[in-house]
């Protein structure tokens, strides 16, 4: 429906105000019950934004409560602006991931830019200096012109904001799948570093304290960002939603970071909140509710960008780069001095009260008076219906054999050609064309930047380093959301463990469809169960995150995508192990074994075949053992390089180690099943390690002590990757053991590099690195 047509139909059939604000009749009744009267206009607008899915988590809250959140090092968990985990020496790390999917679909540059800005504010609000950003991006077919427009805008937006504000973009993901064509995903994770004693919370203690707004002025941009954009599916009138997208000003954000950290360091604020989704309404009601206080706000005191703004516009505007501080009266002058030094406008817009109400007055007239908790902790919660779709399939139980009829040839396949095609494909080719548009080294902490597995940031002044990654297995999630979510946690945690680091905690961004649709809600509840199971098995607390629902467009719902961010701690950065083959003549050791199942793999995507079998199974107990094993092996100095087997399978894992290390390998792989499964299957809990030959026996022994199968495949070196496929132990006939049972994989490193280097640029129609279009 066009805007004009909608206006016309609205005139004929006026929609009640509460419905226009996104509230249902039931929700209106619940508001009346909480207030004991009918809400006034401004109050209804405030409830409209605060009871939106985005702000209230009204559908997901009951599920999120099932996640494990406790951990001995956890300083702040869910419910705060970001999770905070202690790393010793009086230091702590703050981290969180958040989505900005719908704004980015409507206006990709500003949507992505303000996504970065918003998550950075969550970090420095806690008193932490932001030190890194990771962006997990998902789009439709890269050959599609709309996808290209979105990719270009989002990448420029992430860079435009992060580069200017001076926080390095050190990692993330870029995945293409047709399900994201109408609804791309822009998930941004930020990491900050703080002294534990500087930890600041978004609270409003102390009746009589001033409420100070500082930063940018309040305008009409981003009206209804949370309610209109984030909490509804896309129709065919997307351009009409453009005014709901906020506009970012990274320069203002940079000043806000410095000013906020200066205020915190000086002990000048009692509480600090960023103003994000839900605008001033959200920041004030949450801060008051957390402290068990109230607030009285003078609408006229709020500095505005334009005249004639209606009270509701001022109260729910999501204008960017604004902060809310609670300040003792005797410290106001000092706070003002800091803001003035950074040339940031500031204003006292109200005071903390003891009545637990959020009251808004304008020229002495009371426009709203609402219990703060009614807007936040006591917001409505819906029990949604979950129903598995009829075509649903379950993953086989661990160890239970499944059919391996992958429908792909065992002979005559030329595995080398398959590997070349995989490495040049949009999802596996080098991401350099994208991440080179980001500043990944500002801050002088980046030990490992984007493109080589997990990012590594040294903690300046100590021997420690933080290791961070984001991962999501959405394709398997589409087949089995429990498995997809558990695999996502396992892979993210594994990517941290293989560096030698100890994973500290998880932040999750749950991107799902319309929760009022029982199948979509089933996907969400299964995925949350998967995250919980995996986190418990791996001993990881979930310290916070974000839920993004209604990711649907006329083309359908997205694949259920639980994006998992993990941060880990390496005690001695000098012991860091990377994925690249580091020396010629090192022994290559495969830990773990391939299990059947090609569904959801990049190999299946490339073949264009609907695989008849299911996705590979995940044994969480074995995964936990594998990660303990590799951390111990690194600790004991037995590992020269470590890579996990994930997208593209074993052959791609080995190829990446070779490309990053600039040296090939000559290997013999004992196989007991289909060569396609062995080389390109994505069954989890497998590692490709290299070790000095003299350490190989100790490494193999350690694996066995952890109950893990491990096999020496050969040595690194040379300009080719050659993998002979030989009969494995489980092959029936003894005489076949050790004999070639399928065509070998043999391909030149230079050819792999050509395929891998330019693959992404070719897919997106960008000029390649050497200037050729």
């Amino acid at each position: 429906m066009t805007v004009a047509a909608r206006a016309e139909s609205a005139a004929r059939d006026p929609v009640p105000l509460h419905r226009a604000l996104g509230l249902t009749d039931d929700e209106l009744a619940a508001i009346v019950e909480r207030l004991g009267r009918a809400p006034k206009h401004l109050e209804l607008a405030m409830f409209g934004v605060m009871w939106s899915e985005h702000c209230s988590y009204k559908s997901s809250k009951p599920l999120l409560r099932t996640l494990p959140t406790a951990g001995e090092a956890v300083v702040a968990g869910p419910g705060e602006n970001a999770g905070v985990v202690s790393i010793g020496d009086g230091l702590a790390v703050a981290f969180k991931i958040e989505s900005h999917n719908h704004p980015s679909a409507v206006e990709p540059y500003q949507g992505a830019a303000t996504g970065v800005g918003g998550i950075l504010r969550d970090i420095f609000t806690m008193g932490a200096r932001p030190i890194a950003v990771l962006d997990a991006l998902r789009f439709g077919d890269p050959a599609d012109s709309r996808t290209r427009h979105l990719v270009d805008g989002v990448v420029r937006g992430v860079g435009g904001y992060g580069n200017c504000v001076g926080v390095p973009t050190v990692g993330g993901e870029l995945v293409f799948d047709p399900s994201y064509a109408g609804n791309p995903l822009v998930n941004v994770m930020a990491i900050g570093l703080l002294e534990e004693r500087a930890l600041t919370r978004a609270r409003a203690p102390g009746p009589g304290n001033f409420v100070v707004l500082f930063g940018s002025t309040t305008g009409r941009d981003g009206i209804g960002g949370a309610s209109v954009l984030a909490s509804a599916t896309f129709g065919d009138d997307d351009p009409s939603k453009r005014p709901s997208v906020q506009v970012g000003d990274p320069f203002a954000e940079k000043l806000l970071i410095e000013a906020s950290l200066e205020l915190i360091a000086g002990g000048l604020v009692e509480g600090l909140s960023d103003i994000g989704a839900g605008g001033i309404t959200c920041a004030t009601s949450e801060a008051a509710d957390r402290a068990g206080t109230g607030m009285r706000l003078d609408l006229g005191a709020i500095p505005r960008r334009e005249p004639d703004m209606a009270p509701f516009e001022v109260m729910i505007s999501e204008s960017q780069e604004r902060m809310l501080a609670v300040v003792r009266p005797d410290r106001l002058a000092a706070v003002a001095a800091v803001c003035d030094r950074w040339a940031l406008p500031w204003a006292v817009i109200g005071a903390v009260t003891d009545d637990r109400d959020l009251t808004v007055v304008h020229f002495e007239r009371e426009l709203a008076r609402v219990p703060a908790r009614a807007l936040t902790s006591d917001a409505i919660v819906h029990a949604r219906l979950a129903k598995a779709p009829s075509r649903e399939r379950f993953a086989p139980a661990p160890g239970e054999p499944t059919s391996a009829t992958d429908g792909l040839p065992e002979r005559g396949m030329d595995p080398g050609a398959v590997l070349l095609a995989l490495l040049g494909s949009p999802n596996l080719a080098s991401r350099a064309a994208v991440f080179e548009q980001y500043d990944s080294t500002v801050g002088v902490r980046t030990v490992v930047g984007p493109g080589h597995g997990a990012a590594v940031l040294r903690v300046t002044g100590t021997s420690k380093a933080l290791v961070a990654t984001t991962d999501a297995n959405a394709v398997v999630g589409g087949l089995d959301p429990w498995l997809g979510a558990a695999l996502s946690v396992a892979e993210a945690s594994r990517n941290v463990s293989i560096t030698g680091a100890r994973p500290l905690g998880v932040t999750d961004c749950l991107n799902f469809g319309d929760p009022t649709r029982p199948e979509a809600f089933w996907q969400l509840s299964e995925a949350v169960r998967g995250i919980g199971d995996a986190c418990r098995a791996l001993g990881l607390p979930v310290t916070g995150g974000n839920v993004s629902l209604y990711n649907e467009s006329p083309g359908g719902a997205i694949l259920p995508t639980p994006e998992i961010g993990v941060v880990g701690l390496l005690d001695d950065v000098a012991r860091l192990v990377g994925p690249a083959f580091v020396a010629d003549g090192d022994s290559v050791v495969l830990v773990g074994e391939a299990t059947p199942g090609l569904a959801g793999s990049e190999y299946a995507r490339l073949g264009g075949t609907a695989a008849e079998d299911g996705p590979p199974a995940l044994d969480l107990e074995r995964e936990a053992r594998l990660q303990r094993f590799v951390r111990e092996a690194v600790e004991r100095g037995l590992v020269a390089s470590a890579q996990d087997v994930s997208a593209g399978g074993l052959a791609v894992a080995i190829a990446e180690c070779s490309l990053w290390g600039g040296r090939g390998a000559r290997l013999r792989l004992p196989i007991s099943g289909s060569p396609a499964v062995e080389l390109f299957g994505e069954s989890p809990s497998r590692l490709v390690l290299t070790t000095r030959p003299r350490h190989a026996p100790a490494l193999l022994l350690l694996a066995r002590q952890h109950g893990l199968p491990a096999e020496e495949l050969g040595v690194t070196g040379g300009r080719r990757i050659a993998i002979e496929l030989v009969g494995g132990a489980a092959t029936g006939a003894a005489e076949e053991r050790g004999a070639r049972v399928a065509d070998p994989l043999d391909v030149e490193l230079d050819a792999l590099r050509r395929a891998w280097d330019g693959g992404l640029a070719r897919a997106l129609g960008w000029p390649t690195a050497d200037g050729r279009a």
Partner: protein
Amino acid sequence: MTRIGVVVFPGSNCDRDTLHALALAGAEPVELWHEAATLDGVAAIVLPGGFAYGDYLRAGVIARFSPVMRAVAAFAADGGLVLGICNGFQVLAEAGLVPGALLRNRGLRFLGRDVRIAAERLDTPFTHLLGERRPLRMPIAHGEGCYFADPATLDELQRDGRVLFRYVRTDGAPAGETGDPDNPNGSLRAIAGVLNAAGNVAGLMPHPERAAEGVLGSDDGLGILRSLVEAARLREAAAGPAVVGAR
């Protein structure tokens, strides 16, 4: 200890990194606020990278009008050593303290990655401790780094030995101007850094302060900062014009 000033504009984002690296290079680094009218008696000045005042219009165009830049210009006119890195180079070019201009990268995209540069001269205050001419690896991170000047100016820079750094290939040979990935932004004559006529003011686009420690992948940039610190120390000791170097 030699005090080196690092100017902090609103929007500078490499100021802390530069302070950190200058300390590693043996200096006592000092922050200089953009509103300062005096330079606090420092022996040399570094203008760091970032996006001074947001750089929404054009890189460096507003920063050149800040109060501190009047003091920096006077300091430079008096022979004081000034190094501009990335945004600092852009500010120096906008202020006319070094020749030429920095245009948008030829590929029209921001670029952040490692490059190789080599010093054309080893007898300047910024390069005298580099020892030998060899490729130095360090990151760039900029959207407007394509060095541009008219042909006469380029010839003059060449003739007077005022091309300080060029982007080079693995073998040390200068990169080409177009279609050569070793010249990341398409700078004319692959120029990565230049000197003013007096030889006391230099600008370069790559970030030596991000390549000052092995743990970060390269310490090739430390030699540039150490050269500056040592030259500033000698100049302070002599209380005269900067005359240092091997010859």
